[in-house]
């Protein structure tokens, strides 16, 4: 790849990335040639044939069959090449290799959750082994989202009530951003995740560790971890500042006024209900936008979050 372009491109970290870039470069250089012809000739003609005084044009030639055929046929051939090339790689992008490791991706406003076959699950953090194809079986719980990783050159819309499929094979270890690229509302630009590509053993260890519910941590520590991992942090601050949702600081034990005019004491039950059925009791001044965590959080995780919130005085 040309060095000047490499500086702009994100790293090509999947098996397909360099093929996509190769086509990009082909189009880029072909376009550069055409652009130079059109703009170069225009500038040349404007300088050369600039009107001075009142003299008429020196030629009224109005067609030239050979020229017109040439400038129709050559672009046609070039775009046909581009079409076949692009189509070939597009099919590769969506035909999943047989030995791929399947991970279920669920998108909802405004986070990603990942479920592994082994039972592990995570939010906004996808850990995969390097050098092994990964199949993403994706669906959304609310509106259309889109799963995009620029370094892997992959992108696929995630639809509600329907599965879509994408896959990749990372060639380098490292961390890569996941962007949601289909507009999905208020938290669209916060709907970021990370893919951590680890050596096979480390990845397997992470999955193993993640399957066992924060063993070895106190409930409070586990809750603090979940606060970040399960994306509570996106909407709820712990320093008292107002965000999409109410802050957690000092909330436990306080009395909150609700949208419907009644009020409620924030206790264990209220927090549990807010996690599992968030639209039931919405605090005044906030929109009922929180997704349900029913099915995402296990009992111990709910307890851990409650313990953690209790500590935020």
């Amino acid at each position, binding site marked *: 790849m040309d060095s000047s372009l490499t500086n702009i491109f994100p790293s090509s970290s999947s098996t397909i990335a360099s093929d996509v870039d190769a086509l990009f470069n082909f189009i880029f250089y072909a376009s550069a040639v055409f652009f130079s012809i059109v703009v170069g*000739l225009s500038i040349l003609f404007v300088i050369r044939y600039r009107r001075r005084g009142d003299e008429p044009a020196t030629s009224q030639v109005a*067609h030239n069959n050979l020229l017109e055929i040439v400038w129709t046929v050559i672009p046609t051939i070039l775009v046909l090449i581009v079409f076949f090339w692009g189509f070939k790689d597009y099919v590769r992008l969506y035909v999943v290799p047989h030995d791929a490791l399947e991970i279920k991706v669920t998108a909802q406003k405004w986070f990603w959750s990942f479920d592994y076959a082994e039972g592990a699950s995570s939010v906004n953090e996808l850990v995969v082994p390097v050098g092994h194809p990964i199949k993403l079986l994706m669906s959304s719980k609310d509106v259309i989202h889109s799963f995009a990783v620029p370094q892997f050159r992959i992108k696929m819309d995630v*639809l509600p009530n329907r599965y879509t499929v994408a896959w990749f094979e990372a060639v380098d270890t490292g961390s890569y951003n996941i962007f949601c690229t289909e507009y999905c509302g208020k938290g669209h630009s916060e709907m970021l995740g990370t893919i951590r590509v680890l050596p096979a053993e480390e990845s397997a260890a992470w999955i193993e560790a993640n399957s066992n519910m924060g063993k070895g941590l106190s409930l409070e520590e586990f809750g603090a971890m979940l606060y970040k991992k399960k994306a509570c942090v996106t909407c709820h601050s712990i320093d008292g500042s107002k965000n999409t949702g109410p802050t957690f600081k000092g909330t436990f034990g306080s009395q909150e006024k609700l949208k419907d005019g009644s009020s409620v004491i924030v206790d264990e039950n209220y927090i549990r209900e807010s996690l599992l059925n968030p639209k039931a009791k919405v605090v005044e001044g906030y929109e009922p936008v929180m997704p349900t965590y029913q099915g995402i959080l296990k009992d111990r995780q709910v307890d851990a979050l409650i313990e953690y919130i209790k500590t935020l005085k």
Partner: protein
Amino acid sequence: MSDTAPKNYLNEQKGIKSWLLTHDHKRIGLLYLYSIMTFFLVGGVFAVMMRLELWTPPSDLFSPDTYNQLFTLHGAVMIFLFIIPSIPAALGNFVLPLHIGAKDVAFPRLNLASWYIFIIGALFAVYSLVSGGVDTGWTFYTPYSVTTSTAVVPMVFGAFVMGFSSIFTGLNFIVTIHKLRAPGMTWFRMPLFVWGLYATAIIQVLATPVLGITLALLIMERVVGIGIFDPAMGGDPVLYQHFFWFYSHPAVYIMILPGMGIISEVISALSHKKIFGYKAIAFSSLGIALTSFLVWGHHMFISGQSELAAMVFSFLTFFVGIPSGIKMFNWVATLYKGSIDLRAPMLYALAFLFLFSIGGLTGIFLGAMSVDVFLHDTYFIVAHFHYVMVGGTVMALLAGLHYWWPKMFGRMYSEGMARVSALLIFVGFNMTFFTQFMLGIQGMPRRYASYPEQFAPLHGYSSVGSLIMAAGFILMGFYLFYSLFKGARADKNPWGATTLEWSIASPPPSGNFDNVPTIDSDPYEYKTAAGPNG
């Protein structure tokens, strides 16, 4: 402004009523012109507000909700209230009958009605704006547009109503071109702007009804939950995208084809040379219009549509690119050995050649399926369509506006200020949007209120560029307004052009032609130094 001027369409009747009830295509054209300029200003203010927010990574100036409404309203206002009616309804209305030697369009009352329908639609859009705004993006994708609590219905209904305005304009133009050409004006003696408007009108009547039913279905989905687009009701959100793009892709050509027509006029007139490849340009307009209906799925390569459909749409997409390329080459060839007059219309036409080349060529990247997967929904797309819409359509609109300004108002504007403003717009535009190509390649997604730190420098340049561009437009507004009152009186043919409108007074009389002209030659017959047709 008409103290000493002879009787013309501007001064023959006076008073607000004579404007609001006029059947004169020239006055209706001006009504449209004033309307679209107002909405251009509104859309432009939204754009600058967005760029100010994006100057720095966090969402600090506006809340994400406000930002989402800003880009939605910027898109909706610019597309539905500005670009779609801009060239056809404003300039087209004024110029088309003059171009073909007619006294008016075929249905003058329908013409006025379509302006009123446009205004009614615009009022709904404004109502939606003041009653909470819309945050769906101008594409109203389901199911987001079905579930959001913002005022989607009035905005969608406004777009629905404006669709009828567009349909009636298109219908009127087709009939006018078929039936009202002056004696002797054969199809191949029509100026190329007329061909552009004809191709545009075909798209308007064929595609806009589908937008109408799509938006109606969207309203029904919100109100009754009919279950066609909403997955919660058993529908398919991807189907909405098909319905929407069946109109909205051809609509891109509603926006650009008449602009291409203007460029043909301006380049020929200000080079004082016959247009190169007249028939190729005329037929490529029709070709673009018809093939534009076959390619809508290239907006949906990653939407979850079938791979087969994606392949067919990608293949056909490339064939809609070829005619545009042919036009580019023809315009460059027209410059060859011309006598090129670098006044304001020509500057904008040259800016068009430069910017639209980039806009068109970057379209090839997006037509290529695998590359589109990478670039889709990033700033590359944003940059691409701004190069096409602003670099193409708006530059053509400005070229046409400066070209026909003396005919419209009988006054000249300040050439010096026009050049400064053209330079500011050109530089500012490239600075704003070329950086966005680079952002897109780096992976910056569109419609983000805040963004990771790594994108900050390019966003900064882009925001500065937008202010430079805004300065150019403000300057233009100023000198054009000034020229209405103090500008030098214009000749009837300040450019030495050969099409029919330049053979009558500036501004033209109410009935256009005292005697219907008889045409016996091609539209672009310029004198040559080196002998006849050398």
